[in-house]
């Protein structure tokens, strides 16, 4: 059972570089819980003092809109982690979690986690190293998005296709990586912007003056075949000659 739990913990990027003995120690501290359908794990605004790992089942991440109605931000399933930052900072929960079905989770309390860290300074170093690596990785994303934003502002979309988001180069990144999601959304947005721009360009159409020559000739002849027109033409010639002489 504990070996199984240790394997679950190893999948979490906070702990994925921990040696097996440390993982085994952590596994002893976690508590297994079963959520029934619609059970609330915690509410938005609650004080957060635990990390949860989903072993099976699915939960939804919810918040409220300005009218107080529930808005589902995300759905999270097996192998994913919830509320890991709460182990280190003491911020209230930014969203609530509700089970969508019967869900099995592991809970690690902050005090237990801290206890291990005090006993095993190596583990603290390992967690710090991991956090530092994530920070470096995220900084890389931010720099990349900054540069691409500048290029989009100039109307340069050439990086789409030629650049792979850094996410794809890094094997360990998981779906829950939020900045990775931002990156993916950014690419989707830029592609959308480019498509709309091209559509607008297409709308600048060419207009060709098409003239029906037979109809043109017919109308011309109808007008010019009258006696009035013949007289007018003669009179106009006379007038022009007069006015030329006057100039």
């Amino acid at each position, binding site marked *: 059972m504990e070996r199984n739990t240790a394997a679950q913990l190893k999948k979490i990027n906070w702990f994925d570089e921990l040696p097996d003995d440390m993982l085994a120690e952590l596994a002893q501290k976690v508590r297994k819980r079963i959520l029934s359908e619609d059970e609330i794990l915690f509410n938005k605004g609650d004080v957060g003092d635990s990390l949860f790992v989903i072993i099976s089942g699915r939960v939804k991440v919810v918040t409220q809109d300005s009218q107080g109605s529930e808005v589902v931000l995300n759905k999270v399933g097996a192998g994913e982690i919830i509320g890991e930052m709460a182990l280190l900072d003491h911020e209230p929960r930014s969203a609530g979690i509700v089970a969508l079905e019967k869900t099995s989770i592991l809970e690690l309390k902050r005090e237990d986690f801290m206890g291990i860290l005090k006993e095993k300074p190596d583990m603290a170093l390992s967690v710090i190293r991991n956090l530092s690596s994530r920070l470096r990785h995220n900084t890389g994303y931010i720099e990349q998005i900054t540069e691409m934003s500048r290029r989009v502002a100039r109307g340069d979309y050439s990086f789409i296709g030629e650049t792979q988001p850094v996410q794809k180069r890094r094997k360990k990144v998981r779906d829950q990586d939020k900045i990775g999601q931002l990156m993916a959304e950014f690419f989707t947005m830029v592609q959308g912007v480019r498509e709309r721009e091209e559509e607008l360009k297409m*709308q*600048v*159409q*060419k*207009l*060709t*003056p*098409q*003239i*029906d020559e037979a*109809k*043109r000739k017919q*109308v*011309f002849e109808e*007008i*010019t075949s009258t006696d*009035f*027109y013949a007289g*007018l*033409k003669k*009179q*106009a*010639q006379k*007038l*022009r000659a007069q*006015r030329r002489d*006057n*100039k």
Partner: protein
Amino acid sequence: MGKIVSIHSFRGGTGKSNVTANLAAQVAMAGKRVGVVDTDIQSPGIHVLFGLDETNMGNTLNDFLHGKCTIREVAFSVGEDAGQRTQLAGKYLWLFPSSIRGHEISQILRDGFDINLLNAGLQTLMSEFDLDCLFIDTHPGLNEETLLSIAISDLLIVILRPDIQDFQGTAVTVDIARSLDVPNLMLMVNKAVPGYDYDDLKGQIEGAYKAPLTGILPLDFELAGNASKDLFSLSNPLHPWSMELRKVTEAILVVP
């Protein structure tokens, strides 16, 4: 002697009267002596742009054509009665309006008039007012008074919108102008809606009609809102519509 400039469009709704009034105002602003005759006796409209209505309109072209007054007595001096068009105060600009009274319009349409008298009147006012430029706002289509206006023109400006029917009608007008030996012919596009390649269109129009396209004036809702009561190029001189109109004005000024 000055030049006669007829402004024509094959179909109505091109903004012809509005363009004519603004061109006349701009040429007067350049210090020229300018007359504007409304020969659109079926549907007169240009008077509004110079501040005339039922209450202050004196003699009309209809009165002259019915022998009730001289052509000189039809003249409304815009320079002396500029109203809110303060830029035109003191300029040499006269309007010769058509009647806007319903029974007078139906009378002239029913009884007709002597086209030679109209011609004589136009020639007289050219010399009596010593005009540099006489603008004739014609009725759309090619009826007799419009054909006369074209026939006596030194310059014919054909206004078209960028659409199929105007392209076709303009072709006939251009043929008629050539048949009547009009020495100068220009085209201008009004109410150009966005979304088309107008540089490309200019080349195509000039190729199709073998005449210069002197201006492409944009459709503008701000302009459409007050076009009928205001001389837009005077009140909004830096608007793209006004800037494009002044290109046409410059082209008119250099015609001999």
